[in-house]
C-alpha cells in the first residue's frame, strides 16, 4: 500500500513539472479546438537542436568512457529494440483487424526511439538532480536502428513468402513490388539498403553528427553556452507540440482496429519494463547508474516520431500509415512521456538513484 501511495504521490507531483505539464497543456489546447500553431520549420529546428544537444553531450562523454562500460549497454539497447519488434509483431498480428504488415510497421515504430521522449527523460532526471551516464545518448541509434531494421526485414520476408505462395498456386501472377524496387535481390542487399536509409534519415544523421563532433572536435564551449542552455526551454515547447499532435492524431485511430488502441496504451509500459530489466542487468555487470537504467526504460517505452514514419512509409508501402502513425503519435508517445516518473520511482526503490 505504502509503495502504491508513494508512486501516486510522486506521480502527481511530477505532473506539475514543466515537461509533463506542457505535454498535457498541448493536449488540452488541441482538445479545445485552439488554433494555436507552432510553425513546422520551428518544430524541425527545435528537434534538430535537441538531437544535437543529445549527440554532442554523448560524444563529449564518450571521449572519456571506457569501451566495456559503453559496449554492454549498447548491446543491451540493441537487444531490447529487437525484442520489442519480435514480441510486438507476434502479439499485434494475432489481434483482429490487424494485418501482418501493419503489425510489423507498428512494432517497428514502438521499438525505435523518440528523441523528444529521451530528452524529456533527461530533463526530468536533471530536475530531480539524478545522475546518469553522459554517453547515454550514444545508445539511441543502437536501439533505434536495430528495431527498424528488424521490423522491415521481417515484414518484407513475410510479404515475399506470401507472394511466392500466391505465384505457385495462381500460375501467371506477378509479384510486383511498388516503389523501392529490387527488394528481392538478396537479403544482404535489402538489409544494406535499409541501413543506408536509416543512417541518412534526419534524426539519426543529426544525432550521429553531434556524436562525431563531440568525439572528434572540441565543441565543449558552444555546447555549454548554447545547446545545453536552450535545452530545457525548447523541450517545453516540443512537449506542447507533441501534446497537440497526439490529440489530433487520435482521430486517425477511429478508422483502424481497436487492437491498436490497446497496443498504444499498454506497449509503452511493457516495453519500458523490458528496457528497465535490461538496464538492471547492465547495472549488475558494469555498475550502470540508476539514472541510466531509467533512460534505457524511457528509450524502450518511447516510439519513433520523426524518422521512423517516413522510413517505414518508404520501406513498407503496403502498411497503413494511419494505423502505425496514429498509434504511435496519438497514444504511444504521450503514454511513454507520462510514464517517465514511474521508472524514476521504480529505480529509486530498487537500486537507489
Amino acid at each position, binding site marked *: 500500500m505504502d509503495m502504491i501511495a508513494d508512486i501516486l504521490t510522486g506521480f502527481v507531483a511530477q505532473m506539475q513539472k514543466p515537461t509533463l505539464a506542457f505535454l498535457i497543456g498541448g493536449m488540452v489546447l488541441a482538445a479545445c479546438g485552439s488554433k494555436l500553431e507552432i510553425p*513546422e520549420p520551428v518544430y524541425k529546428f527545435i528537434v534538430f537542436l535537441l538531437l544535437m544537444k543529445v549527440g554532442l553531450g554523448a560524444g563529449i562523454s564518450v571521449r572519456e568512457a571506457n569501451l566495456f562500460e559503453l559496449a554492454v549497454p549498447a548491446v543491451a539497447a540493441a537487444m531490447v529494440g529487437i525484442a520489442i519488434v519480435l514480441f510486438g509483431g507476434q502479439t499485434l498480428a494475432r489481434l483482429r483487424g490487424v494485418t501482418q504488415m501493419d503489425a510489423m510497421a507498428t512494432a517497428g515504430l514502438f521499438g525505435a526511439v523518440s528523441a523528444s521522449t529521451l530528452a524529456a527523460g533527461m530533463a526530468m532526471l536533471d530536475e530531480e538532480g539524478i545522475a546518469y551516464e553522459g554517453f547515454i545518448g550514444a545508445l539511441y541509434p543502437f536501439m533505434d536502428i536495430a528495431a527498424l531494421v528488424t521490423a522491415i526485414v521481417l515484414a518484407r520476408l513475410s510479404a515475399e513468402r506470401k507472394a511466392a505462395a500466391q505465384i505457385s498456386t495462381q500460375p501467371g501472377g506477378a509479384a510486383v513490388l*511498388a*516503389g523501392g524496387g529490387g527488394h528481392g535481390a538478396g537479403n544482404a542487399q535489402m538489409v544494406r539498403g535499409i541501413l543506408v536509409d536509416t543512417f541518412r534519415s534526419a534524426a539519426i544523421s543529426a544525432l550521429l553528427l553531434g556524436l562525431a563532433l563531440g568525439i572528434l572536435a572540441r565543441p565543449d564551449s558552444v555546447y555549454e553556452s548554447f545547446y545545453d542552455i536552450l535545452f530545457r526551454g525548447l523541450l517545453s515547447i516540443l512537449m506542447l*507540440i*507533441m501534446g497537440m499532435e497526439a490529440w489530433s492524431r487520435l482521430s486517425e485511430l477511429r478508422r483502424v482496429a481497436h487492437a491498436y488502441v490497446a497496443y498504444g496504451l499498454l506497449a509503452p509500459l511493457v516495453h519500458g519494463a523490458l528496457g528497465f530489466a535490461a538496464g538492471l542487468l547492465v547495472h549488475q555487470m558494469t555498475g550502470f547508474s540508476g539514472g541510466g537504467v531509467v533512460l534505457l526504460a524511457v528509450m524502450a517505452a518511447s516510439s519513433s516520431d520523426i524518422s521512423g514514419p517516413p522510413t517505414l512509409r518508404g520501406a513498407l508501402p503496403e502498411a497503413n500509415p494511419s494505423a502505425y502513425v496514429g498509434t504511435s503519435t496519438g497514444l504511444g508517445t504521450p503514454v511513454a512521456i507520462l510514464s517517465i516518473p514511474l521508472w524514476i520511482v521504480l529505480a529509486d526503490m530498487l537500486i537507489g538513484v
Partner: protein
Amino acid sequence: MYQATKIVIITERTVLDGVTRLIEQGGATGYTHVEAGGKGSRGIRSANRPGLSGVMANVKIEAIVRDKAKAEAIITAVSETYFRNYSGIAYVEPVEILRPHKFDV
C-alpha cells in the same frame, strides 16, 4: 501556338522522387511541383501541418509533354506503381505552348 498535354499528379510527398523519375523516364523534358494539402478517400493531408513526421503531406506535380499518348503512358505508369499503396490522383489537360522545342527530348 502548339497543342500539348499537361499531366497532373497529386500524391504523397514521400514519393515525389519516385514519381518524377517515372515522368522523366516517360519522356518529359521537365516537371514542376508545389506543396499541397487536400482531402480524399484516405483523409485529410496538409502541406502546413503534415504532422511531426511529414508523412501526411501532399505534393502536386505537373509536366507538359507534346504527345498525348506519352502523357497517358506516364500517368498509367505512375498509377500502377504507386496508387495501390499510396494515396493520389492523376489527370491530363490539353494546353497550348509557344516554344515547342522546349518540350521535345
